[in-house]
């Protein structure tokens, strides 16, 4: 597995290797918007025990996190995806779903903080 989580890479490390600051800034802005939107979808779908919607949002968020090197958030999302698949097969929401949603929310906050710090570094702050 070549995902950011397995590589244990630092937030934004690969972006810095391959892209110029204006591109990185644009990608991180899109990432922040993704996290805000998908975090809300995860919260709502967990509350509604909508396993399919929860899994899709977790999948999208995992992809966004992998793109910027937010390894811990990506790992949390992939765990949540696997859990949602099990829940969908069993036709009953897993008991740990609220806890996983809360964990993802916490990791979202951490990734957003990383993104803000990274952007501030790009701006010379």
């Amino acid at each position, binding site marked *: *597995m070549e995902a950011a989580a397995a590589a244990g890479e630092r937030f934004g490390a690969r972006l810095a290797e*391959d*892209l110029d600051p204006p591109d990185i800034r*644009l990608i991180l802005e899109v990432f922040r918007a*993704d996290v805000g939107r998908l975090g809300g979808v995860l919260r709502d779908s967990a509350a509604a025990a909508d396993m399919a919607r929860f899994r*899709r949002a977790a999948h999208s968020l995992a*992809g*966004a996190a992998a*793109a910027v090197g937010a390894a811990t958030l990506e790992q949390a999302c992939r765990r949540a995806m696997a859990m949602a698949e099990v829940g969908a097969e069993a036709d009953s929401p897993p008991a740990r779903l609220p806890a996983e949603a809360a964990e993802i929310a916490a990791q979202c906050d951490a990734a957003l903080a990383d993104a803000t710090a990274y952007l501030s570094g790009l701006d010379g702050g």
Partner: protein
Amino acid sequence: MAAEPGARVLVVEDSPTQAELARALLQGLGHAVRLEAMAGAALEAARAWTPDAILVDIELPDYSGLELMRQLKAEGCDAAIIVVTANASINAAVEAMRGGALDFIVKPYAKARLAVTLANALEKRALQAELGRVRARLERDRFMGFIGASAPMQAVYRTIESVAASRASVFITGESGTGKELAAEAVHKASPRAGKKFVALNCGAIPRELLESEIFGHVRGAFTGALSDRDGAARLADGGTLFLDEIGEMPLEMQVKLLRFVQTGTFSPVGSSKLERVDVRFVCATNRDPMTQVREGQFREDLYYRLYVVPLELPPLRARGDDVLLIARDFLQRSAREERRKFNGFSPDAEALLRSYAWPGNVRQLQNVVRNVVVLHDGETVTAAMLPPPVGTAPVDAPAPASQPPPPPPPLPAPVPTPAEPPGAVTVMPMAEMERLLILAALRQTGDDIPRAAALLEVNPSTIYRKLAAWKSAGKLPAG
């Protein structure tokens, strides 16, 4: 290895962050990028934008990337498809390749990895396209009016393509009815001269005293009846192609003048001393062996070597294997449409007869046979019993070897007798008898080529077939 910059890459990715990352990396590699988040929209974009490569995420909101690939392939999309997946398992890769992907890449991917994967996929796509072109060239069954997929015809097509761009003279040999004029026209149409005229002159059909004027033109008063200046074939073909058919029939004194024209590109119209210069490409044809004619003193050796630059030998129909069936089916379709018949194919026994017959009159004879059947019969399938003799009576198990010289061409569809006297005397007689004599004279003049005789008489070939059948049943034609 990196892809040549400038490829059009469609990225199908529903995660905006991943999509923006792909756009930035690909634009950094010099490629044009279009993003789509849904499979349905990507399908539309692939149709409208015709990308060189498509990066497809497996998980898409509307349907899966694998299903999208299947639809793209079903529509004939030739873009290099690369599957993007977060799961690097062998199963995912195998499934992606089975679905038509040329490669897969695991996200998140580095720019260098993306560059190599894309370059490999685009190279594979280019090789596949080249392979397709080569296959099409080797297996084509139609070429500029020719019908035939046999190996000898593939060689003919290749020669025509190779020689077309050059200015070199082409010397076409082949039995009567093998398509020499069609080959000459193909050389012209495939050449840079295609926008100019293709002028064909049958040296064997023009009286020797008129041949010089036909080729070089004349000025007013050059001879009795030359009431005005008239351009000849050489002037008309300026910038284009001059096709001299039956060149072996050209009188020796005319060959001298043609040689000068070929050597210098200049000529004088009959009755004029003024030299004119034109730019023509020469294509000649004969159904005789030109070297034998040279040895026998009927064809000038110097002219032969001037014109015999690129030889193009058209194979006889008996050497073309199943081409006879391809041609017969095509003629059947066309003739049935023209004659408003229902025919749409041949029975197996009819095909066996067509395949085994030696066709001494080649494609022209086959055309006559098919037309004969269509005019005189009706139905959906041509049976062996409908084929006129000698085709219908040929033994199916004894095909003529390709190398065997053809037997004398039989008259088709039925033996046509030579009229007792030509109709030119204008003896007053019943109209029907005059018609009969005219048709028979036209057949004699064209060597029993019914379509050509019909063209001379400006009637439909079917008219001649019907008349022949009626005369035969009325005993107005000798049997045999």
